[in-house]
């Protein structure tokens, strides 16, 4: 699929079934990492991935009140799971597919803007790699 970087760069925060998802930021990415969300951490080969739970974690982190999210993510994994479970009761089941599409769009937008830095080793600009 051909990507459209400028489209993803400028897409506003979506509202799905009354839920407004805040954007994926460096802070929320760190939270997702902290709770071991499988969308942003390497998969555990001994465990079957639960994509619906991962989506609910994502929705909680990006739509629940930020101070609540920070507090339970900092407290303990059990407190976080309980909070996600309680919050998930307010999420309409019919909205989950649209929310998953939005999660995929967010991750694609991040992937499209990711670059690797190439060492220069005192080379001239004429030696730069293509599209650098």
């Amino acid at each position, binding site marked *: 699929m051909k990507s459209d970087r400028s489209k*993803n*760069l400028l897409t506003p925060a979506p509202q799905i079934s009354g839920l407004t998802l805040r*954007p*994926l*930021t*460096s*802070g*929320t*990415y760190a939270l997702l990492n902290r709770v071991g969300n499988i969308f942003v951490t390497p998969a555990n080969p001994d465990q079957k991935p639960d994509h619906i739970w991962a989506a609910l974690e994502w929705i909680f982190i990006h739509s629940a009140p*930020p101070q609540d999210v920070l507090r339970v993510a900092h407290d303990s994994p059990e407190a976080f799971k309980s909070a996600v479970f309680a919050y998930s009761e307010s999420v309409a089941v019919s909205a989950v597919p649209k929310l998953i599409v939005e999660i995929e769009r*967010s991750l694609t*937008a*991040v992937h*499209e*803007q*990711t*670059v*690797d*830095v*190439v*060492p*220069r080793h005192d080379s001239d600009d004429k030696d*730069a*790699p*293509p*599209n*650098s």
Partner: protein
Amino acid sequence: MIAEKTGWREDFILWELPLHRALAYQHCALWSGGAWTVEPQATPEAQLYSSLTSFPIIDDEDE
């Protein structure tokens, strides 16, 4: 790097600035600083697997 280049508050960068935009701005800062950047490559394991599977398969029984 973004805070240094823009003067934006840390809480804005952490909690409000979308990550894909932060990465785009970081890319601009790297570029303006003279760094060379390329699109990320596949993992070394994936590249190795791709190289190995691209070799033609030789059937020993034909020899």
